[in-house]
Structures are given as C-alpha cells and as structure tokens.
C-alpha cells in the first residue's frame, strides 16, 4: 500500500488515476441515473426542482473536471507516453505523483461541497448567480476545481518536457505515434488554457467571499467578462477531452485495419491545428449573451474552421480502413462507434455554430445531446477502446472477447437510444436543466430514460469482465494484437523502468505490412 502511495513509477501513478477516476465516473453515473429517473415522468415528482439543480450540477462538475478532462491523459497518457517514446519514465516523476495528490485533494474538496449541501450553479458557475445569489457551496467547489486544474497543469508540463527531451534515439518528431501527437497538442491546451479558468474561479471565490466587485455590474464589474474568461478555458477544454480520444482512434484503426495511417503528417498536424483553433472560438457559447454581432460572426466563422482539421482525421480513419484488412475486435468496434458518433456530434456542433440556428437551439436539449454525443459517444468510446486495446499490455491478461463485443454493441445501442431523442426534443424547443416539462414531451423523454438503462448495463459489463480477467484471464504475451509501437516491444506488464535494453528506433511508425503476427487466438482473423 505504502509503495503505491509513494511511487514515482508513471505506470503505477496511471493506475492510481484509473482507480480514482473510476470512482468519480461511478458517482457521476449514479447521479445521471437519478436525473434520468426523474425525467421519465413529466412532473417533478422524485426530487424537488432545487435538488434537481444540485444534481445536474454535481453530474456536470464531477464528469467534466474529474473524469473527462483527466481521463485519457492521466491514465492512458501517463501509462503509455514514456513507453511509446522509449523512455524509462516521465521527465518529472515526483511532479507526476504530486499531480495525483493535488487531483485527489481537489476531488475531496468538491465532494465536501456536494455532501455539505451541494452546488446549484451548473458546472459553468455563471456570475452574478454564483457570486451573489446562489445559496450553495460555491467557494468550496471552485477551490476543488482549481486544484484539479493545477493537477492538469502539472501533467501538461510533464508531457511537454517528456516529449521534447526523452525520445529514444532515432525517434524523430515525424516518427512519433499519432497518440503522442494528440497528447502533445492536449498538453499545450492544458498548460495555456487551464490557468485562465484557475484565476477566474479564484476571482469568483474572492468576489463571493470578500465582496470585491469584480463581475458584479452594480459595482462596475462585468458578468460578460466572466463568460469570456470561463469559455476561453472551457471551449479549449472540450478539445482537451476529445483530442486524446482522437489519438487513441488513430492507433486503433491502423492496427485493426493492418494498414498504414492514411495521411500521417496531416493527422499529426491536425491535432496541433485543433489545439490552436480551439483557442479562437470561445465566443460561440455567447451568441445570445450580448456580445457584438461582429464578434459573433467572426466566432461563428472560426468555429466552422475547426471542422476542417476534425474532418481531416475522419477522412484519415476511413482512408486507413480502405483496402485494409479489417479485424473486428472489441477495440475496433469502439473505434467504429467513435467515428460514427463523433461525426454526428461534430455535424450537430456546426448547426449550433450557425448564428441564426443557435438562437433557436440555445439552452435546449439539442445542446445537451450535441455535447453528450461528442463526450459520451466520442470520448468515452475512445477511452473504452483504448482501455480494451492496452488492457493486455497493462494487466498482462486477456479479457473475454465475447463479452467485450457484447458490451461494446450494448453501449452503442444504449447511447443512440438515450441521446437521439434529445436532439428531437431540442429542435422542438424543450429547455435543458428543468426537472419538469410539458407532458407532450413524455414519449421522447421516456425513450431517453429507457436508453439510459441500456447504457448503464454497457458500463457495468466491462467493469465485471475486465476485473474477472485479472483472475481468470489467459496470459497476454508481449504483443497479442501484432501491433507496431515501442510499447509492444516490452513485456506485459512492462518492468519498472519499461525496457530491459533502451530501444533504438530505425523505422517509420505503423509499418503494418511488416508488423509481427498477432498472437491472440479465437477472435477471428487478422
């Protein structure tokens, strides 16, 4: 136990993060369950409207700041980045451990706020409600999120320095795995966007606790300024959430198509382009908040521009599968699910980036459905796909491929059933964040709640068979999928300093025509 809590091994810290985030995800999921049960009927009969506000805030804060943002970087990134670079560890191992402790401290503060009576501002902490009027634990919660942000900054700095300084001999930038490119782009956002949220939340705490009129219009402050600050972080934050997911998909698709990635250079550059463009679109959250029309037009145009590098990635995945030899394993099912749902989520995002359309759709279920399609449909599919792909490497064991496929299909069907009805609800004008709604929306809301139960089953299943594989799974071998990449050249799980002999890279990545044969059996043909 003590050896785990004082470890500086990036692999163990990654597993500490995995455990912590799984707890947060479970908590956020349970709250989502209560929300969907409440919404199964039109009246607000299970919880009061006030409790409902606190529930969706709890769900949002936990899921965004304590699961989605850290998920892939701190777990898969932490575990895999040094392995993929051929390095013994991250550049600053003690900073890495510190980031986990700060993250846990932030989580505990936030949970304290929730237990002490909750937070009812929504995950967006909009002023002046949060600073003046809300009768809930704003200060505790924002300090908790501040600490989570600090932990993100630590991780980002560590990844940037590691990628620059600890690449194996011969591992030039254009030989880096695409997952590393996406982590690098994500780290840039983590380091350059997170401090803006951190300071903004401190200002909220100062205004609320010390009555300094920073955002309060009565005292000369500006609530719109808060929104600019908040979205300057929180829009890039959605790229923090999705970019590492795209990186995972860019690893899965070449491996299970047995083909080189189509347009490697474009995919690598598109990660950086998304990171850069992501900083320039925050105003599309504020089309109806009173910013100037000129600003809105520019933000709308730039939001469309982000679709270009995102489209590059989708075309690359499709081009990689084209004339490849597609092997439909569990990770590949998740990858295909990601491509389908990300495309739906991205397309509906463009609808929201249109000025006139957004006036109608703003603050409706359409926004909820769009966001969850990218985050749950996209990001979580990628997370689970990556988890299944690298699980044999991390645990050294093979899980039940049959149950893996059943769970992946269950999640996909559950997802569509839960969130497609919400797109329709949004176009019909149903506002989000209300506990009760007019009875004519009963059918679609009921359908959504029914879908959520299927989704819940899909989340419980991997928890069961992955844990079972630790006890009953067959040994995985070093490279069960016959994948390229340095992480597959070492044992499963890797030894404390990753490689017995420091690797030297002599070839370009993803040489699938000459990759080793898969050693896994009983999962169809490669």
């Amino acid at each position, binding site marked *: 136990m003590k050896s785990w809590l004082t470890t500086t091994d990036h692999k163990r810290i990654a597993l500490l993060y995995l455990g912590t985030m799984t707890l947060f995800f479970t908590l956020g999921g349970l709250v989502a369950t209560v929300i969907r049960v409440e919404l199964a009927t039109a009246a607000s009969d299970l919880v009061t409207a006030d409790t409902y506000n606190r529930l969706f805030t709890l769900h949002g804060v936990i899921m965004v700041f304590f699961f989605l943002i850290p998920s892939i970087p701190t777990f898969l990134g932490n575990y895999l980045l040094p392995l993929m670079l051929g390095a013994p560890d991250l550049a600053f191992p003690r900073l890495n451990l510190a980031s986990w402790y700060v993250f846990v401290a932030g989580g505990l503060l936030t949970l304290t706020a929730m237990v002490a009576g909750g937070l009812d501002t929504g995950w967006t902490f909009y002023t002046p409600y949060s600073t003046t009027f809300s009768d809930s634990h704003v200060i505790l919660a924002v300090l908790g999120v501040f600490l989570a942000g600090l932990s993100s900054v630590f991780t980002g*700095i560590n990844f940037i320095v590691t990628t*620059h300084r600890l690449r194996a001999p011969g591992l030039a930038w254009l030989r880096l795995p695409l997952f590393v490119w996406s982590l690098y782009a994500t780290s840039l956002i983590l*380091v350059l966007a997170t401090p803006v949220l951190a300071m903004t939340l401190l200002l909220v705490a100062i205004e609320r606790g010390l*009555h300094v009129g*920073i955002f*309060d219009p009565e005292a000369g402050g500006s609530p719109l300024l808060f929104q600019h600050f908040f979205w300057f972080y929180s829009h890039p934050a959605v790229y923090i959430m999705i970019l590492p997911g795209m990186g995972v998909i860019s690893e899965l698709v070449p491996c299970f198509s047995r083909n080189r990635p189509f347009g490697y250079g474009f995919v690598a550059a598109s990660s950086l382009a998304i990171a850069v463009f992501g900083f320039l679109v925050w105003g599309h959250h504020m089309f109806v908040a009173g910013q100037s029309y000129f600003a809105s037009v520019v933000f709308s145009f730039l939001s469309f521009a982000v679709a270009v590098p995102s489209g590059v990635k989708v075309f690359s995945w499709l081009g990689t599968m084209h004339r490849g030899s597609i092997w439909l394993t569990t990770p590949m099912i998740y990858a295909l699910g990601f491509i389908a749902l990300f495309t739906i989520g991205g397309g509906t995002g463009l609808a929201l980036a249109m000025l006139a359309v957004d006036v109608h759709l703003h603050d409706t279920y359409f926004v909820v459905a769009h966001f969850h399609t990218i985050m749950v449909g996209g990001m979580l599919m990628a997370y689970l796909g990556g988890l299944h792909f690298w699980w044999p490497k991390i645990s050294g064991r093979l899980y039940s491929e049959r149950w893996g496929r059943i769970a992946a299909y269950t999640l996909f069907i559950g997802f569509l059933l839960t969130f497609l009805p919400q797109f329709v609800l949004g176009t019909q004008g149903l506002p989000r964040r209300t506990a009760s709604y007019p009875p004519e929306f009963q059918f679609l809301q009921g359908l959504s709640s029914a879908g959520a139960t299927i989704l819940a089953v899909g989340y419980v299943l991997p928890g069961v068979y992955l844990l079972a594989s630790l006890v009953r799974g067959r040994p995985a071998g070093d490279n069960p999928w016959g994948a390229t990449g340095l992480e597959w050249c070492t044992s499963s799980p890797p030894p404390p300093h990753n490689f017995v002999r420091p690797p030297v890279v002599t070839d370009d990545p993803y040489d699938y025509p000459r990759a080793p044969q898969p050693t896994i059996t009983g999962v169809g043909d490669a």
Partner: protein
Amino acid sequence: MPEAVREPFADPAHQRDAVALGMWAFLGQEVLFFGVLFVFYTSLRVRHPELFAAFAPRLDWRLATVMTVALLISSFTMALAVRFAFTRARRSLVLALSTTMILGAAFLALKGWEYAHHFEHGETPQIDLAGLGRGPGLATFFGVYFVLTGFHALHVLGGLGALGWLAVAAWRTPASDLRGSPVMAVGLYWHFVDIVWLFLFPALYLAGRLAP
C-alpha cells in the same frame, strides 16, 4: 536539493535542459494566469476611465518606485546567484541568495505597510452590501488594485520560500556537489515575478496622471 542526476535522465546537461524547459512551460501558464488579471484591469479601465483618474493618484508612486528599484536589484543578485551556482562558488551563492531574499522581503514589507495605510484611510475593495446600486466607485478601483497586487505579492512570497530552500540547501551542500539547475529554475521564476511588477507599476500607480 542539489541532488544527483535523477532517474529518467542520462547526464546533468540533459537534466538541466529538461528543468529549463519545464520552468519555461510553467511560466507560460503564469503569463495566462496573470493575463486574466490584466484583461480584468483593461476591461475596467476602458469602461470606467474616470475611476482611474479619480483614485489612482491616491497611490504613492514614490514608494512604488523604491519598491521597483528593490525588485530590480534583486533580479541582478538572482542572476549572480545562478552564475555562482554553476561555478560552484558556495559562499558567494549563499550570499547572493540571501541578498535576493532580503530585497524581496523589503518589497513585501513596503507592500504590507502600504496596504495597512490604505485600510486606515478606508481605501478598501469591499463593496458596501447595503449600499448596492450606488454604482462603481472607490471600492471598484481598490478592488482591481488589491486583486492585482495581492496575487503578485503571493508570487513574491512563494519566490522567497523557494529562495530560502535553495539557500539552506546550498549552505549544507559541499561545493563539489552543487548543481545549477534548481537555482536556474527559481531564477527564471524570480525574474518573471519581477517583470509582472514592471507592468503593474505603471498600470496602477501612474494611471490617470497624464489624463487631460
């Protein structure tokens, strides 16, 4: 502190390189951190220039000049400290670090004295809750003043902590074992905090003085 080469690095130069890059990345996030404050300042200044014309003259620019000079000299002694650390001149290193700390502490002491003076004269950032609706005024200006200088002072305080830790470690370490990287990293940070003050000084103390 001045320790042997740590695990992931092959040699001291490699480690020094990585520490420098890490500190630059950290300073990058510090720029954005303070950037929020400067945008807050700009937003207020653009919307309410009259507040700055009315209340900025209440700040003592002569005192602030003395504080600026203290910080500038401390940056010089810090630069000397980095040099001494790399040349393993232990006694000079301890002396340079201590001088830097004394100057930083003098800055904070003057800042604290200035704060106390403001509070005595009712120049506080607290808005009068009962008087809501009176509009922007003295409290608004002193809000931005205290928030900006307060976060800067906290950074100076953090720098003093790091300097103290370096000085104690240098005192205890034989000259042959001295390593430059940590001193260099803290030095970068110290210069950054200095530069922030160089922006705060004219933005707050000299604001509104040239207004017609």
